[in-house]
């Protein structure tokens, strides 16, 4: 709709955008202000808006209360590992769904969607059992497999949509040049589908980074826990240490926002293909 409308339309754009920004920013401002307040100020009634005393030192002392360094490391390992595995598996699946016709294709699509209809929280006992069978409890590698498995539906659906938009001729040209089908996919299809892959990567990464229930139940070693599990240390029996909760929350969210910023320009392009064709 790249057409100029009246000034009312322009005004509406600004108003809607401004309101959206304010609503979204609000909880993060609350988080930041609360994270630098001291205990007495957090518990004061009525609450203060701006911190009276800026306890920026919370961002340093929090590292002494919980092994945050380990948590960051583990979250990064699991998120990167699960993302890599999930996308590596979903690319051939997406390709097969987009390009091939095979018996049971419809059934496979339904099977994939149906597996999404059970949330992990329902399945804990069974999940633990299967992880035990493979000696993968208390293992980051096991967690990577599990998170990647639960991510397959979304990733392969999205990627098949992306692949379907790519012209068949390019691939055939590569085959004529002497490439096998696999080589053609690696050399032609994947680079062309990069925006869609980026989107799938982001979705998988965020899901894995923010995973909570599975990590909680499967990981028993303190030094293998993730940020999201570790943060619960501040929800005590006798009180909640909100200032540290929010300090950690912001520290946890920051890496993802940086990741977003780094690849921002690819995000929207990627969703195009998946959204329309899927």
């Amino acid at each position, binding site marked *: *709709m*790249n057409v100029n409308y009246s000034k009312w*339309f*322009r005004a509406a*754009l600004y108003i*809607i*955008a401004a309101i959206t*920004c304010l609503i*979204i920013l609000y*909880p*993060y401002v*609350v*988080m930041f*202000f609360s994270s630098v307040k001291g205990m007495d100020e957090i*518990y004061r*009634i*009525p*609450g203060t*808006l701006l911190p009276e005393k800026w306890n920026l030192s919370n961002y340093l002392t929090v590292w002494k209360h919980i092994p945050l360094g380990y948590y960051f490391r583990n979250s990064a390992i699991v998120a990167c590992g699960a993302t890599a595995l999930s996308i590596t*598996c979903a690319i*051939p*699946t997406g390709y*097969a*769904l987009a390009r*091939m*016709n*095979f*018996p049971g294709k419809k059934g496979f699509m339904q099977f*994939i969607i149906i*597996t999404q209809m*059970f*949330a992990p*929280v*329902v*399945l804990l*006992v*069974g999940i633990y*059992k*299967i992880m035990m069978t493979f000696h993968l409890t208390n293992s980051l590698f096991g967690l990577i*497999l*599990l998170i990647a*498995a*639960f991510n*397959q*539906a979304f990733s392969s659906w999205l990627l098949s949509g992306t692949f379907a938009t790519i012209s068949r001729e390019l691939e055939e040209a590569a085959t004529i040049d002497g490439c096998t089908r696999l080589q053609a996919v690696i050399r032609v299809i994947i680079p062309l589908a990069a925006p869609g892959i980026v989107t799938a990567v982001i979705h998988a990464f*965020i899901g894995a*980074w923010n995973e909570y229930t599975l990590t909680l139940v499967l990981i028993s070693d303190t030094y293998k826990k993730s940020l*999201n599990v570790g943060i619960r240390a501040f929800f005590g029996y006798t009180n909640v240490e909100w200032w540290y*909760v*929010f300090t950690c*929350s912001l520290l946890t*969210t920051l890496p993802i926002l940086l990741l977003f910023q780094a690849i*921002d320009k690819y995000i929207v*392009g*990627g969703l195009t*293909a*998946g*959204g*329309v064709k*899927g």
Partner: protein
Amino acid sequence: MDARIRKKPGIARFEAYLWMLPTLTLVSVFVLFPVLESVYMSFSKVSKAGIIKSFGTLDNFRYVLKQPVFPRVIVNTVVWTVLIVLISIVISITLAIVLNERFHLRRITRTMLLFPWATSGFITACVWKYALDYQYGSVNALLIRSGLVKKNINFLGNADSAFAWLIFVGVFVTVPFMTFTLLSGLQSISVDYYEAATIDGAGFWDKLFKITLPLLRPAINVTIVLNVIYCFNSFVFVHTITGGTPAHRTDTIMTYLYWMAFSKGNYGAAAAISVIGFIVLLIFSVIYMNVQMKEETA
């Protein structure tokens, strides 16, 4: 398009399965097995420690269905899912149209929209609960300072207003992902359509209803199906903000199930609830897809 492939004899027809082998393996082992285990448990007699004693009983389902609060929980879940998805769709379409225009706030708004997507649900739930608190919440502090209200508002005080705020939080976390999906759909619509429409003298609303929305249909359908599943299965928001209080009147299937399993220790009933939830979702998707197909052929 598949004429070439269909000609292929024998084993080659199954080549696709080779390509899908990694996904098939992962999903069958790590997702399908626990799902079957859960279904098996729902038909079994289960001890308080979660050990299956014997298979072949409908007691768990009977127990769940006779809980006086269960109908309420189902209704809550449906209301929760439908309202969040509907409200989010309307907001997301608006935002997608806004963000598809070039203006000064565009980039910052897009960046802002990434925030809720990047934050874990638990943290989002915590901060809203904290901000909406009756006594020390900053929303009330803000309203009082700005002179809009005289007395603190009891946002989470009764079941209805608490549930409304739960839906607000649900929309807050659903809109970003939806907006990006729709925005990308929007960007793939050719400018030619609009130029032609402008020449024909069509206004903003004409273009919206005659060009934008119809062409956006596939993208909207996909986000609806996905987000219905996500919302239906979302757990952390209700669990963190109200925990189902008072007396399960803000519970959804997921939180009620969690309460049944881990607060009450009735694992068999919890498994039965998950199967009932699954059936509800399945019915939805079958109906939705049928309606879609009818509309498409009509």
